[in-house]
């Protein structure tokens, strides 16, 4: 495991509830978490445990109901939208399960988007080299809507590689992919972490989580445990153990 550095993301007493009054449903219940640079942190847990909600609250794409988040020195709840936009195009990257590319833009322009929005002169050349690294050179001029699922996800990853963000949030990035495409995407995320980025991965895929330096186990909106690098069977055992514990 890489040496510990100062956390780039911290969450204290983070809560998130949907609805109000008797209909209120607590999804995150007092989460305390530190995410360090140069680490791939996987968040796993059963369906409905609040994994994706935690990722979105940490990233500022969803507002929390209580507690505090510090993302690269900014509090997403209080920061002005312009500051958060700058943070997203310069220092934070996202990979989603649904790809979320702009369908009418080419793979090249999708990959270069944060750089283009930041008026970076080398945005397109960086996007081209990232696409080439992921084997998408010949599809660089193809519209995103014409790419296959795996190609779209690799384009989304190329956006992250081209922007070289300090923090990467990945929400089920292999959820809709086959084994080969999953391996490419996870390899890219692992490489970003090795280059110094803090990568936060939410996944159901235990093989993907096994590539993480640290695994956070979430259940009913609470952190049940934080584990070091573990194999897929060990993680399965942890999940089953938690299930058994919950049933007892």
């Amino acid at each position, binding site marked *: 495991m890489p040496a510990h550095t100062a956390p780039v993301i911290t969450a204290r007493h983070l809560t998130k509830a949907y609805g109000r009054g008797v209909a209120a449903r607590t999804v995150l219940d007092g989460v305390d978490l530190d995410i360090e640079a140069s680490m791939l942190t996987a968040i796993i847990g059963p369906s409905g445990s609040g994994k994706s909600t935690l990722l979105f609250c940490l990233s500022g794409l969803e507002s929390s109901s209580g507690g505090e988040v510090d993302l690269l020195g900014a509090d997403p709840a209080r920061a002005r939208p312009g500051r958060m936009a700058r943070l997203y195009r310069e220092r934070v990257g996202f990979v989603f399960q649904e790809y979320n590319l702009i369908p009418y833009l080419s793979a090249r322009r999708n990959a270069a*988007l944060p750089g283009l929005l930041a008026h970076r002169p080398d945005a397109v050349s960086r996007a081209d080299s990232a696409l080439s690294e992921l084997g998408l050179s010949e599809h660089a001029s193809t519209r995103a809507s014409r790419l296959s699922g795996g190609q779209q996800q690799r384009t989304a990853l190329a956006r992250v590689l081209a922007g070289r963000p300090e923090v990467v949030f990945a929400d089920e990035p292999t959820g809709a992919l086959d084994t080969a495409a999953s391996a490419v995407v996870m390899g890219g995320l692992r490489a970003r972490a090795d280059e110094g980025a803090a990568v936060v991965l939410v996944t159901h895929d235990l093989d993907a989580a096994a590539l993480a330096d640290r695994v956070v186990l979430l259940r009913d909106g609470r952190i049940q445990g934080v584990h070091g690098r573990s194999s897929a069977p060990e993680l399965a055992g942890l999940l089953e153990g938690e299930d058994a514990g919950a049933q007892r």
Partner: protein
Amino acid sequence: MSGAILRSVLAGRAAWWAPALVASLSSLLVGICLVQTLGTDATNPEIQAVLRSEGLETDHVASVGLSLSVMMLPIIVIVLATVSSAAITATTPDRARWRLAGAPPSMLALFVLLEIVLVSLAGGVLGALGTALLGGPLSGLLNRLILPELAGIEVQPAPLALLGAAVVPPLTALVAGLLPALRGARVPAIRAVRGESEPSGRHSGRRGVITGLGLCALCAAVVLTYRRPPVLDGGQALTAGLGLAVLTLVVAGLGARTLVPLIVRAVSRLLPVPGAVWPLAGDGAVARAHVSGATVVALACGTGILGALTGMARTSEAISRALGSHEDYNLLDTYVICGVIGLLCAVGGACVLALSAGDRRREVATLRAAGMAPSQVRGAAAVEALLLTAASMVISLATTLMSTGLITRAAAVEGLPARLTLPWPELAVAGALTAAVLLAALVLPAQRALGASVRGSLAPG
């Protein structure tokens, strides 16, 4: 099975508010015109007395409402067709499920057409109720605008006018809904159920052929009418000019998905602005051709008719002046007609854009996650509005040229001093109003999308 499909088609149609709104507004406007025509005719002694005292013909005022009703019919067809088409696109996944369950396309087309007619009938009934309540005062207002001396004379809504107001929208919907219904039945089932967008270019060949055929028909009509133009006296040339204007708009409507992206692409290449926002807005407008094309054509109907009518009037005025007349043409009634048509077109255009708000919300959320600043989001929406305004004005200018050119040609053939006079001030005002409508219809939803949760907006479905 057909009963189940029909029930499904009629139940819970959130997208049908737009055609219903356009149908009810059409009904109200036609109703007002019919009330004006039937209440201001030779049987109204009070109005006839005023007309006689002013030295005017007995049908001087009543004919305005009738002309307006007739002119509005093709405009209602085009606007209703574009809005219905957008509403049908919004409900594609429902039809896709029925296709997967084995429903034949002909049955789906029939039910979609029935749906458009029923929605229009509902709008027509609402419009007729509105006419019963407001038809009298608003027709009186129309009369006052045409002839200020008619102020204060009440016009009563005739039952025939109310009936006309109720039946005009469903009857026009039968024509307007045909193409959207046929297109709606040819749904790519698997792709639609998965929520995947249709690849651009899938039907571009067929669209190109339809646009080409439409342009050929327009060219043939222009050659025929320009070679032997109708005589100016008696208003035949004016009628033919107006016909050419309507034909131009119909061709633009049929070829909207091909022509509008071409114009937008040309304008964005003519004005290359550095930065990410301008090309993004241009690409967005081109990619959303089904929305931007319908919006542009709906708005161009209003500005094109304004350009055609005022252009023909200005050219006729210029010919009269060249012959020694010093009389200024009073275009007040023309402006009233264009204002009424323009209102219908603006509502239609705004409805089409409103129906695509869901897609835009998702796109804005994706761009926010990629780091697009709120000012850039608003800027992209504003640039798209300006590009669509430019496209709308290109079509309007073509419409104006077709009709105004015919008057010039007719005058030249008759040996009169002919000079093409384009109504630049009116077109400039129309362009400004179009830009205002599009800015409001694009920037306000973008602003609302900025306030929404990114996660909620990105959620599938």
